[in-house]
């Protein structure tokens, strides 16, 4: 299996560990990733907030680059990019006026299928491979899966399994032997880029999510979004100070957890990048099978 790969800005900067662990997990699962040549920012939150045309043109130009590589499927791990790509495709499909303008600014073919790694890893044959490749058990490690906003919403754009109670990440991590718990905050918002502009809002939203995970009995939170990870991890101490309680919840990418289970070398998981140390992951590993 081979896909074009669009890392997006975060995975080459604040979230290098997501990039590296995704590559490691993909390798273990026989998935080849080929980085999109000359890719640039999809415009993220900013472009669509200032211009419909820019919000469509930046992602579609990157999809045109995928097509120029002779590929028609691209893996996009950052939910913000993933969402912007799919929104842009919907925009030109549903709005002929914008489509004509985009075609002049960014000529080319943008008909590449945009996939999130969770969509690929949750296919039945991949789940079977994950089960076979799982060589390490993390005893007593209870997780909750936090999907955030843009991976699941809106369903007609993302095509994800469920907007209120998604199961895709739960299924993938269960296949890797983790004890995944049910909880109520799977798709609640972390405040995203308000972290840079209205920190108070992000601290309050983060508090509710961390408290919810704690109440569910979780020892760690699995995420698939760079912004969710940074907001919940790097600001956790501040949130604890504000709330007057301690959470101590490591916020790990699902790819790091997959890597842990499949015996990927620690160097490729970069667990040391996180503020809240994943002690259970570093010490509680036992070999099995």
């Amino acid at each position, binding site marked *: 299996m081979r896909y074009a790969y669009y890392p997006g800005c975060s995975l080459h900067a604040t979230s290098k560990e997501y990039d590296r662990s995704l590559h490691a997990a993909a390798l273990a699962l026989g998935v080849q990733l080929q980085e999109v040549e000359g890719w640039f920012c999809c415009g993220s939150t900013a472009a669509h907030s200032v211009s419909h045309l820019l919000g469509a043109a930046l992602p579609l130009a990157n999809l045109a680059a995928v097509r120029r590589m002779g590929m028609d499927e691209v893996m996009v791990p950052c939910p913000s990019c993933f969402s912007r790509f799919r929104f842009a495709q919907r925009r030109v499909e549903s709005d002929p006026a914008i489509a004509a303008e985009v075609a002049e600014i960014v000529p080319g073919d943008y008909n590449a299928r945009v996939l999130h790694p969770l969509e690929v890893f949750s296919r039945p044959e991949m789940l079977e491979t994950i089960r076979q490749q799982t060589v390490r058990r993390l005893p007593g490690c209870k997780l909750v899966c936090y999907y955030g*906003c843009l991976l699941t919403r809106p*369903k007609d754009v993302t095509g994800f399994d469920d907007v209120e109670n998604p199961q895709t990440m739960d299924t993938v991590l269960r296949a890797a032997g983790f004890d995944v718990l049910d909880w109520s905050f799977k798709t609640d918002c972390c405040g995203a880029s308000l972290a840079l502009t209205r920190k108070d809002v992000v601290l309050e939203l983060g508090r509710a999510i961390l408290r919810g995970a704690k109440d569910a009995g979780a020892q760690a939170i699995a995420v698939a979004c760079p912004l969710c990870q940074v907001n919940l991890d790097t600001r956790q101490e501040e949130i604890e100070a504000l709330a007057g309680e301690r959470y101590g919840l490591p916020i790990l990418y699902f790819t790091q957890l997959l890597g842990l289970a499949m015996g990927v070398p620690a160097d490729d998981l970069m667990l040391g990048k996180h503020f809240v140390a994943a002690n259970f992951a570093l010490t509680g590993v036992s070999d099995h099978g």
Partner: protein
Amino acid sequence: MVERVLRVDERSQGFTELVTALSGVQVDACFQCGKCASGCPVAFAMDYTPTQLVHLIQLGQREEVLSSRTIWLCSACQTCSTRCPQGVDLAEVMDALRIIAAREHRAAPVPAVPAFLRHSIGNIGVFGRTYELGLMASLKLSTGDIRQDLGLGLRMLGKGKFNLLPGFRGSGTARRIIRRVKAREKT
């Protein structure tokens, strides 16, 4: 949440149509059930809840809507759009409102948000891929809020979370696209 006496007069005309046309969303379809307000994660910090904002649009309250904090605090999480029983894509409406407010060069009541949007686009135009350290620095300098999060930034730096130097890969194409879009939207 605020309570205020509203005036519906000739100045109220045309705004609902403008928002509907720009967003492509039938704002009139809203019957005020309140689902968007109850699900909105940021409603607690807004002046008007999303439900109130839609009502204001229906009543043509241009000033109230475009000078609200609500349009800048919306985190674009899509919860309202997903849950609306009438298919009112409120996230799309919020984009349209931010675009109108920016076109009219209105001073935003939450200036950091439009500053963030402007600096983000500027950053992409220069570097192609977001140069996070540069974005933080330019944003903090422009808002004069240099001290906040300085400690956090330094810790993140210590963890190797930032690229110290920017790259310029993809910057030519990104810059060209931004320039062409701007040229088009000026006419």
